[in-house]
């Protein structure tokens, strides 16, 4: 339903919220986030849905067919409603041509902070191996005192840890390096980031048993898929929060996210989180493998290139509304999105409805966890006129998302608009995303 100013008084347990109490805190209709806390659930229920039509004509309610007979059988492994079939990953290579396959998360069709396992983003460079867990081994060798091989059953007996962590491909958000905005969705722009709860054994626990030689400064992790991709990681990360992940959102890893085990480097570049992990070699220097020496080394405007970027820096983007989630008429809406930082917790998110000229502080959904998605929300009264929505996040280490102009000044932008919007133009874009709202309610990617 659409609630307009002065239309109603909402009664909740703790407080009375009158729409007239909603205070504008920034231009173009952004309202005080504290309305959420004052109004609670009743306020949320009154928000306009992005896909609802005109709801002013009430209908007489009837017993629907599904209410008049026994329902379907419970299945051994549940799947979403058949009405949710469009909630799916966007595939870059559905024919399986001999190159990398990407599956991008549909952020505009999800909410909260966990990404369901079947929708978690995936990049497979040579397909998903069909690994027999009983035959899989994890070997730790190189500059260690006792090279050891672990079965999955053995790892299951070690002390485990669970933590929320986002995973983001270094190439996520790359369409925003285009010199002109590409008319596409949040899924195709930002779909190479997801967030899950991971459970597994800390690498440091296993290194206590192998021991480390004094010269060990890096470890090189390698997968058991046919390409055997490998990445070099500083030893400090191994001793900090590196995990051998065995479970994702409570169940064993899926084949496309590394079954039966993957490396998890919370907050670090996705490609380094080696899937189908079979080997960890302690070394005194980096291997300069293909992915670190060539692919994940973004070119800078002066012709040099960054190498060993490691971190996924603080970022945020608005998921609701966003392209394809059009507004259904002027009125009250909730703007929401996700924010995250490889440096720790998100400390603040600001939202603008006028292209970055004025800002309102967004409410952060608790609990705010380090290196994990934080959902932010802010109430907004759309007056039906043009608007440009942006979000900007800060993290607890004091980092802030740069403006697009700041980021482009430092990192450059692509020399031309790509013919294929999925082409990875560069990596590590963490500037803002701007959604332009047209008076007909359509939402488009714009630059502001």
């Amino acid at each position, binding site marked *: 339903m659409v609630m307009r100013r002065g239309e109603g008084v909402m009664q909740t347990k703790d407080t009375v919220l009158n729409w007239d109490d909603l205070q504008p805190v920034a231009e173009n209709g952004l309202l005080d986030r504290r309305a959420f806390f004052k109004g609670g659930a009743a306020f949320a229920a009154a928000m306009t849905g992005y896909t609802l039509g005109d709801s002013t004509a009430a209908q007489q309610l009837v017993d629907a067919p599904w209410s008049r007979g026994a329902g379907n059988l419970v299945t051994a492994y549940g799947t979403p409603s058949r009405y949710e079939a469009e909630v799916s990953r966007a595939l870059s290579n559905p024919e399986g041509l001999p190159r990398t396959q990407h599956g991008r998360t549909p952020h505009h069709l999800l909410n909260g902070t966990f990404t369901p396992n079947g929708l978690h983003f995936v990049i497979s460079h040579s397909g998903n191996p069909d690994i027999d867990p009983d035959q899989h081994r994890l070997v730790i060798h190189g500059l260690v005192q006792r090279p050891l091989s672990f079965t999955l059953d053995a790892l299951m007996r070690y002390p485990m840890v669970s933590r929320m962590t986002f995973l983001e491909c270094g190439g996520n958000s790359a369409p925003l390096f285009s010199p002109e905005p590409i008319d596409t969705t949040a899924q195709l722009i930002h779909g190479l980031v997801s967030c899950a709860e991971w459970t597994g054994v800390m690498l440091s626990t296993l290194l206590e048993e192998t021991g480390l030689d004094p010269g060990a400064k890096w470890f090189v992790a390698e997968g058991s898929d046919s390409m055997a991709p490998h990445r070099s990681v500083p030893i400090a990360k191994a001793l900090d929060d590196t995990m051998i992940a065995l479970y994702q959102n409570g169940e064993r890893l899926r084949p496309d996210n590394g079954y039966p085990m993957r490396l998890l480097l919370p907050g670090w570049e996705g490609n380094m989180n080696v899937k189908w992990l079979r080997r960890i070699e302690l070394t005194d220097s980096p291997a300069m493998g293909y992915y670190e020496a060539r692919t994940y080394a973004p*070119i800078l405007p*002066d012709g040099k290139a960054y190498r060993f970027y490691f971190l996924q820096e603080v970022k945020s983007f608005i998921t609701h509304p966003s392209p394809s989630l059009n507004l259904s008429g002027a009125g009250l809406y909730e703007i929401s999105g996700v924010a995250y930082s490889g440096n720790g917790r998100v400390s603040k998110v600001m939202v603008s409805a006028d292209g970055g000229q004025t800002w309102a502080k967004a409410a952060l959904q608790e609990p705010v966890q380090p290196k994990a998605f934080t959902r932010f929300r802010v109430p907004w009264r759309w007056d039906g006129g043009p608007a440009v929505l942006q979000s900007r996040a800060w993290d607890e280490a004091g980092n802030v998302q740069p403006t697009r102009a700041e980021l482009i000044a430092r990192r450059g932008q692509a020399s031309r608009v790509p013919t294929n919007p999925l082409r990875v133009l560069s990596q590590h874009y963490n500037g803002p995303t701007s959604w332009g709202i047209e008076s007909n309610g359509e939402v488009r990617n714009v630059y502001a």
Partner: protein
Amino acid sequence: MFTLNRKRAVPLMAILASGATLAQGPNLGEPVSPEDLVAWDITIMPDGSGLPPGSGTAAQGEPIFAEKCAWCHGANGEGGTSARLVGGEPLTNGIDTAKTIANFWPYATTLFDLTRRAMPWQQPRTLTDDEVYALTAYLLALNDIIDEGDVMNASTLPEVQMPNRDGFIPRFPERMP
């Protein structure tokens, strides 16, 4: 240890006796020797460590390339469904400039490592070490980085000076060991 009896309709969890306390560590890793790891221990370091015996030249690599690589990378390495391997524009042309062996790759050892590790894409690790040396020599010569007659082996390959060897800076120097 927890074991799952997959033959039962209801999974049966059995807790078996554990001899070690957690503080001491379960100590369930099995010792593994370098001989055990021959098939897996394939990483080549920039200083050449890990390079196997064997050798190859551009002339030896040319027919192997035509048979096993041109399908995806083009008859002359100009690119096709997979990456261009020859030539390349200056990196100052833009941050989206295509990265090639000549304009970007800092170490020739990476070329050997990737070819042996991952190529051909459909049949990785089927090339002999001599074939990998020969293909490496062929691609380096095509890019005018070595001479046609140069022999690539474990001592010559790490000495190859790639044009963009010094073109890199760490993003966060304080995080480098």
